């Protein structure tokens, strides 16, 4: 690999890692604060992508679609928390997992009924539809860089929320000790609702932003679900920073794995995970 390629591959890794972070951040947040393994996270990603498709078709602009889509996703998340998850906090983790498993089936079928099973594309907003020449034959799409910027902004915003706000105080003090949090005089039901809605919105946002480059298709959620899980496992329970570090590690492992050890590229990421677990059974940045 020559130096120029190496640099571009590094850029690829960073960009992919940041996108993965965007997908995984909502998962780790819900996971860390509510103690729920949300298998339907991939479905929220899928729902986001379809929202982007439907709303972009209707309004003609992805930006507008995102602006409209985020409140919809937040409301949808809050509704699900109210209707379903709020009844299960005292139950076993297992039952919560199965609930989300049931939701995947429901969401996929509803998607099929409402939007059909075709593959769709979403147009990149005109002002981002350009590319930067990197080598004589290769250029880099501006839209990808823009997504990276959004991911960085989001990471900073999450950092701010976690470090500087009351909600963040909970997250840091946090985990699922309801008694302690209630003793602090915080309405935990409201916090859970907000966190879950936020988790859904983050997944949906990831889906909306990824829609123009990944296209929109049935079962797209299950593709990102597992890799998000690996990131959360590597990063450590509920740690947003852990998720960021882990997403970047996975981004690099996947990119360079494909180029350097193509035979093993499917399992490189899992090998990384196994090594991390040997070294730190609770993930790189265990919360607390």
């Amino acid at each position, binding site marked *: 690999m020559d130096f120029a390629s190496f640099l571009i591959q590094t850029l690829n890794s960073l960009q992919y890692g940041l996108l993965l972070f965007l997908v995984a951040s909502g998962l780790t947040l819900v996971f860390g604060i509510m103690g729920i393994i949300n298998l339907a996270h991939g479905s929220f990603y899928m729902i986001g992508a379809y929202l982007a498709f439907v709303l972009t078709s209707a309004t003609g602009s992805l930006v507008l679609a995102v602006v409209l889509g985020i409140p919809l996703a937040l409301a949808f998340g809050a509704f699900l928390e109210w209707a379903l998850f709020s009844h299960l906090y005292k139950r076993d983790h297992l039952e919560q997992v199965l609930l989300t498993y049931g939701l995947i089936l429901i969401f996929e079928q509803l998607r099929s009924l409402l939007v059909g099973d075709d593959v769709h594309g979403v147009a990149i907003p005109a002002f981002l539809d350009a590319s930067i020449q990197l080598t004589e034959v290769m250029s880099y799409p501006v839209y990808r860089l823009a997504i990276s910027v959004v991911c960085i902004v989001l990471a900073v915003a999450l950092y701010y929320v976690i470090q500087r706000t009351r909600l963040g105080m909970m997250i840091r003090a946090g985990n699922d000790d309801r008694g302690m949090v209630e003793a602090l005089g915080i309405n935990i039901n409201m916090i859970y609702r907000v966190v879950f809605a936020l988790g859904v919105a983050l997944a949906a946002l990831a889906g909306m932003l990824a829609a123009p480059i990944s296209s929109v298709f049935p079962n797209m959620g299950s593709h990102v679900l597992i890799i998000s899980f690996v990131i959360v496992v590597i990063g450590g329970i509920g740690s947003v920073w852990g998720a960021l570090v882990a997403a970047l590690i996975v981004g690099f492992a996947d990119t360079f794995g494909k180029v350097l050890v193509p035979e093993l590229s499917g399992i490189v990421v899992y090998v990384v995970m*196994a090594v991390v677990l040997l070294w730190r059974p609770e993930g790189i940045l265990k919360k607390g």
Partner: protein
Amino acid sequence: MNANASLIPKLVALAIVACVPLSGESFYIEIVGKVLVMAIFAMSLDLLVGFTGLVSFGHAAYFGIAAYAVAILSPEYEAASLWYVLPASVGLSALAAFVIGLFVLRTKGIYFIMVTLAFAQMAYFIFHDTPLGGGSDGKYLNNKPSASIFGWEPFDLTNEVHMFYFILAVLVLVYLFLARVLQSPFGRVLVGIKSNEHRMQSLGYLTFRYKLGAFTLAGALGGLAGFLYAVLFGFVTPELLSWHESGNVLLMVILGGMGNLAGAIAGAFAFEAMREIFADITKYWQLLMGGVIVAVVLFLPGGLAGVPGRIKRALQGGEAK
């Protein structure tokens, strides 16, 4: 105490199932055979989830590894000996469970669920992406293993009725074996771990070793189910290891009520029956299935096994008034 009282319905159920081949309908013989295989699989998982408190979301890996092992170990044009491929495949699953257990048992609770899922996914990709077992297309097992011992053939697995009773016999043996194991000192420790692992440690139990033992045993029995599946259908695919399969078997355990071996069997029957019936009624069966899963989780925390108790309580409540 009321072992005899609960024994009778079990024997009746066993007798009914044993009559299935009398129908002569090969589809039903095979489909019930498959459900029995899934019941064995569910029991093996229940050992972990219901009795040891280890919620594994990657149990399909051990099912799939043994299934692949039979397909790979069997020569292409002749039948392998059952007495070689059976222990070998089950042993491979046990070995995989042992090695993976060394990693995953270092974690606890919700984290354990995720890590088992991730490791199973790794196993999935090994079969999906390497030519080891035919890659993504899967692999045929063209000749079912032969049961002959020095020329004497006690039964013939290519005969669907023999195959059915072979599976049923394995199911009964696994049930009796697990019931016995749970009574043993080892089993009592597992139940203690589920109840309060920390206390078990302070009583001097190296709980990691017991959990590893349980994980390996569950992997081996899950492998036994996978072996039977491969022999029954003669076809293996990476999808057998996918997380959907792990989720399905967890559902069976939940449906039957965790920590109840007979419940796990009932859960397998209920799950498969639901799937069949919904798929027959409508194209949108996934919607129904998803709805049922959500409803069971919300309204039936004890699974189906909890239903009689609920009815009893409701009736008693009524009488009291």
